[in-house]
């Protein structure tokens, strides 16, 4: 589904991503792990179009998306959760989610003439996902007034609601309490069982090893190991790269 080929990205004199290549299989949960500074978020930024690689290509479902803009990539089917909270802080949870459903809201005249109403279906979609995530009660709260864990859940909900073929999650459970961590793990498994494809970055090893089908390990911008959780757990190179740091 997603294939990156020989991606290279420099920042100043540093090679953040150094001839990185890997493939993501459809319908699986793939985890991208590695010590701090190994280039994981940079790769995410390259894939979602926020930065452009110096060299290399990115293919999504066969299409070369290397030079697409951020919004084009999203419309091509990649939805992303960021490491820091990127909710629309002055809008309510409901509004945050409504915006994710489609892009009819960018059509001026349609909206002025009332042809893009907040229909029953849209409201139901929002309600459904809020229920699934267990946060129905905060529907009308302004995003800035949410707790950290609630924010993460809303962001995840918003990303899932956004039409997509691939979900990219950057540290979805970093900093959340154990209960929410469990909730999110359950949600991700539910999503996978529905046939979703997920690529995630996480530092929490227990969370990752218990959840992921495939694991890709990065160190200083290179892929040093790929495999199933069991294999990775015992991989000498991986242990060295983590312990060595």
């Amino acid at each position, binding site marked *: 589904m997603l294939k990156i080929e020989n991606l290279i990205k420099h920042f100043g004199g540093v090679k953040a991503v150094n001839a990185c290549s890997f493939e993501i299989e459809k319908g699986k949960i793939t985890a991208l792990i590695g010590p701090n500074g190994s280039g994981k978020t940079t790769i995410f930024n390259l894939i*979602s179009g*926020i930065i452009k690689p110096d060299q290399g290509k990115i293919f999504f479902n066969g299409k070369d998306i290397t030079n697409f*803009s*951020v*919004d084009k990539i*999203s*419309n091509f089917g990649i*939805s*992303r959760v*960021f490491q820091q909270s*990127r*909710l*629309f*802080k*002055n*809008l309510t949870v409901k*509004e*945050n989610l*409504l*915006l*994710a459903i489609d*892009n*009819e*809201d*960018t*059509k*001026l005249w349609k*909206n*002025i003439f*009332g042809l*893009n109403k*907040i229909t029953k279906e849209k409201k139901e979609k929002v309600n459904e996902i809020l229920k699934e995530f267990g946060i129905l009660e905060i529907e009308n709260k*302004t995003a800035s007034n949410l707790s950290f864990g609630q924010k993460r859940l809303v962001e995840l909900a*918003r990303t899932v609601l*956004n*039409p997509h073929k691939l979900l990219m999650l950057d540290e979805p459970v970093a900093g959340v309490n154990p209960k929410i961590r469990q909730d999110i793990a359950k949600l991700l498994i539910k999503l996978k069982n529905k046939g979703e494809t997920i690529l995630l970055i996480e530092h929490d090893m227990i969370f990752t090893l218990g959840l992921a089908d495939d694991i890709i390990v990065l160190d200083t911008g290179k892929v040093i190991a790929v495999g199933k959780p069991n294999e990775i757990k015992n991989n000498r190179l991986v242990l060295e790269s983590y312990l060595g740091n």
Partner: protein
Amino acid sequence: MIDAYFIHLLVLIGIYLILAISLQLSLGYSGLLNLGHIAFFGIGAYAYAILALGGLSSIFCLLIAGALAAFFGYLLSIPINKLKGDYLALMSLGFSFVVYAVLLNWDQLTRGPLGLPGIPRPLIFGFDFSSNASFLALVSIIALASYFFLHRLVKSLFGRALEATRDDELATRSLGKNTFRLKSISLIISAFFAGIAGSLFASYITFIDPSSFTFVNLIPILLIVIIGGIASLPGTFLATVFIVLLPELFRFVGLPSEILGPVRQIFYALTLILIIYFKPRGFYGKIDLE
């Protein structure tokens, strides 16, 4: 006597309301710190004046003036699209300087510092708006229509998309929305209404010169938008009334007319500073100015 004065104030409120809500769209809802907004006001005023003095029918003058201002809004949106914060502010400020310089120097078109006198009051479908009372009716209708249009815009999901762009542009793009286009449209519409306000201003005062369109003149409008509250149209309305009426009190305190001008400026500048410092949310805004 009092009536005429009162009508005059209401006309000003109407004109400034249109100008203020247009700024509220681009600044409050879309998060664009457009310090050059007064340029659109000026472009609309001059376009209307030149066309009206040339004998063109009033409705066309009004629409063309608005369209011309909107076009400049589009032009400004091109460089501004990739900028943020104070850099965007400075760019737009620079834009208003350029417009001012052109208004001041393109003598053949604008008569430069001499200004354009004798701008006719609108004549629409045979109805002459030369009395201030009738002009007030015209302004009220246009102000109402503008307010209604913008109200529909900001309440819709399009308005939400603008607010999302303001709150987090990257996240908005990550949802697949073309934020450059959203911002452009916001500037274009905002400029259009500023141009309409400028046209009404020109035909009301019947004389315009470049000095009404320097960035200093933006201060009261900026003040209105902030005091009323970021992203609040009703707040903008109340603030317009307040900001237009309050300095008139200085008149009644018996201040000589030469110092009325600077006193008003001091009032605007000082109030702006105080509101930014103490209450950047304004009175009806949901968010702080940033």
